[in-house]
């Protein structure tokens, strides 16, 4: 039944993607993009539906499954109505010549990542600390068939363990999705559902990164992005069953969909908005991201006089954002990290300069630890930048400027959160900073690799044995691809 529940949510997301995205050629990019987006967006949508059904109707298994079938049927009907699609050809997504050799390299990286995920999961089937102490514990409450399901966001939850352990205010996407899977399975608490969810989001993140870059920039950037991501600490955090991988998925999907919309059709912005809203439904950081990215989309719309795009984006973000905000303001207990901090204390921390130094040092140390010595993703990006060069034409595009600014602002926002945290700063940094990097890597790779010139663009094609009509001689002709 777990497989059926995963397939159901993925099918919903896939059909949504089919309705709103054109058909991309070559077929592998289309399939990978839509299945990856479908897996993550479907998980988010069904999680939100599951939670809303519980709130509005009650904790009934039959009703939860029935409403999801209705959702699936609606998505299928939408797909049927919009089945005639435009075709967008991603010419550079087809490998040529030596670039084929990136495929076996990517396959080797995947061949390391998959057994690593399995081995880590076999060693720690309950995931790392936050998985069983927060996300899966709340999922266990949420899946209860009686009124005790509300304990997932009770002010009493984990209060006995101290303020640092009570997280009833955290958004519900991950716990909701796992609880939904358990409800479908009619068996609460097994480790298979959280493990499968972790695998689903990890694979979907790689899938979106690779497929979106293949469509927008070509084969070489797609493969190299996948390779670099699998060479970061991302793959260590994947089996932890934390919400940081799902939120990273929604970040990179938002950026990818905004650029796909910019390159093709504005209606794709509905999906971008949906991914952004789902980020807010995943973690508190997602609320910051949603705010900043919405500002970026607004600025982009203002710069390019594209008001309709902003409205379409808002339409997609509205439902999950409303759910996240309603949960925060009307249901969640005021137990959040920053909820009980007084303004005076916060101001005092803001002018404590030693905190800035300590945080900057921790950001640096953790940043360095994200790679393996010289094999660091930032050094990889720098090397690629030096060899391929930045495309100034791309760097001047409003959508690129706004996306990079939004990501940078999120990073700065994380820094500021540490500055004002009421928790012990050392403890807070030590227990969370590595995960924040894991959230940002996929988006950083997507955006930075997206501004470089690609090998395909720099290539020249030699047309051999071309007969000159005037002289009748055979010659070779070089043309820019």
């Amino acid at each position, binding site marked *: 039944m777990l497989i059926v529940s995963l397939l159901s949510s993925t099918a919903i997301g896939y059909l949504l993607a089919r309705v709103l995205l054109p058909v991309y050629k070559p077929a592998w990019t289309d399939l990978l993009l839509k299945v990856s987006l479908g897996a993550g967006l479907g998980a988010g949508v069904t999680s939100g539906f599951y939670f809303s059904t519980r709130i509005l109707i009650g904790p009934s298994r039959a009703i939860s499954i029935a409403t999801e079938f209705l959702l699936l049927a609606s998505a299928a009907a939408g797909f049927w109505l919009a089945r005639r699609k435009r075709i967008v050809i991603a010419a550079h997504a087809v490998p*040529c*010549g*030596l*670039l084929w050799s*990136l495929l076996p*390299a990517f396959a080797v*990286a995947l061949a*390391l990542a998959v057994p*690593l995920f399995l*081995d*880590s999961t076999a*060693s720690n089937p*309950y995931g790392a*600390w936050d998985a*069983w*102490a927060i996300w899966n*514990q709340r999922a*266990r*409450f949420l899946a*209860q068939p*009686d*009124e*005790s399901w509300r304990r997932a966001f*009770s002010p*009493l*939850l984990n*209060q*006995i*363990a*101290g303020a*640092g*352990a009570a997280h009833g205010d955290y958004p519900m996407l991950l716990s909701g999705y796992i609880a939904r899977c358990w409800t479908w399975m009619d068996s609460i608490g097994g480790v298979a559902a959280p493990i499968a969810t972790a695998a689903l989001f990890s694979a979907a993140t790689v899938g979106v990164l690779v497929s979106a870059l293949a469509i927008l920039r070509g084969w*070489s950037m797609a*493969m*190299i992005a996948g*390779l*670099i991501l699998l*060479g*970061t*600490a991302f*793959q260590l955090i994947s089996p932890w069953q934390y919400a940081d991988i799902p939120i990273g998925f929604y970040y990179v999907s938002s950026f990818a969909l905004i650029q796909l919309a910019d390159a093709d059709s504005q209606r794709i912005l509905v999906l971008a908005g949906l991914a952004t809203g789902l980020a807010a439904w995943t973690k508190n950081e997602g609320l910051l991201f949603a705010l900043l990215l919405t500002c970026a989309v607004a600025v982009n719309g203002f710069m390019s006089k594209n008001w309709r795009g902003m409205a379409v984006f808002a339409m997609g973000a509205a439902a999950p954002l409303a759910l996240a905000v309603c949960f925060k303001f009307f249901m969640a207990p005021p137990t959040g990290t920053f909820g009980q901090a007084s303004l005076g204390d916060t101001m005092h921390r803001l002018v404590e300069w030693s905190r800035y130094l300590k945080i900057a040092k921790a950001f640096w140390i953790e940043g360095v630890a994200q790679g*393996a010595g*010289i*094999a660091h*993703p930032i*050094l*990889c990006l720098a*090397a*690629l930048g030096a*060899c*391929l060069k930045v495309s100034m034409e791309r760097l001047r595009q409003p959508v690129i400027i706004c996306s990079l600014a939004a990501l940078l602002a999120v990073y700065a926002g994380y820094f500021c959160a540490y500055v004002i945290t009421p928790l012990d700063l050392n403890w807070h940094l030590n227990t969370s900073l590595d995960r924040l990097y894991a959230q940002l890597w996929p988006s950083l790779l997507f955006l930075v690799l997206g501004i470089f010139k690609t*090998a395909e663009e*720099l*290539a020249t*094609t*030699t*047309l*051999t044995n071309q007969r000159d009509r005037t002289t009748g001689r055979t010659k070779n002709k*070089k043309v820019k*691809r």
Partner: protein
Amino acid sequence: MQTVHYPTRALLGLGAVALLSLYAAFSFYSQQIERNKIQKDAYQVGAEEQRLEALKKELPPGAMVGYVSDLGNEAGILLAAQYALVPALLVERPPSGLVVGNFSRPTDYVEFGRAHGLLLLKDYGYGVTLFRKTGP
């Protein structure tokens, strides 16, 4: 016939980054595989589930229960117990008066209960007990 030529610097860049990334992936892989060998269920969540299973079955549905331990409210142990006991909720002032005892070593539970205003209801073995509050 077409032949595609990529600039050497582009190929060098892509090749170097591919090799560096593979090295990083392999490095993370080998380090984590070694770590996994010694960090098996580091917080003993699975073992805690087994220890508390019998007690969980006998708690009233939707119970809110107290918690005592010879280790105090050590977060890791307490949260693992909470995880195992869902849907029961561990609280400071249990309305039912029921209190879960979670002990790391053999203790005279009756005496421990008397000292803390608790009456031992059942000993489930493996350091797991159920008390009822005797005082206010």
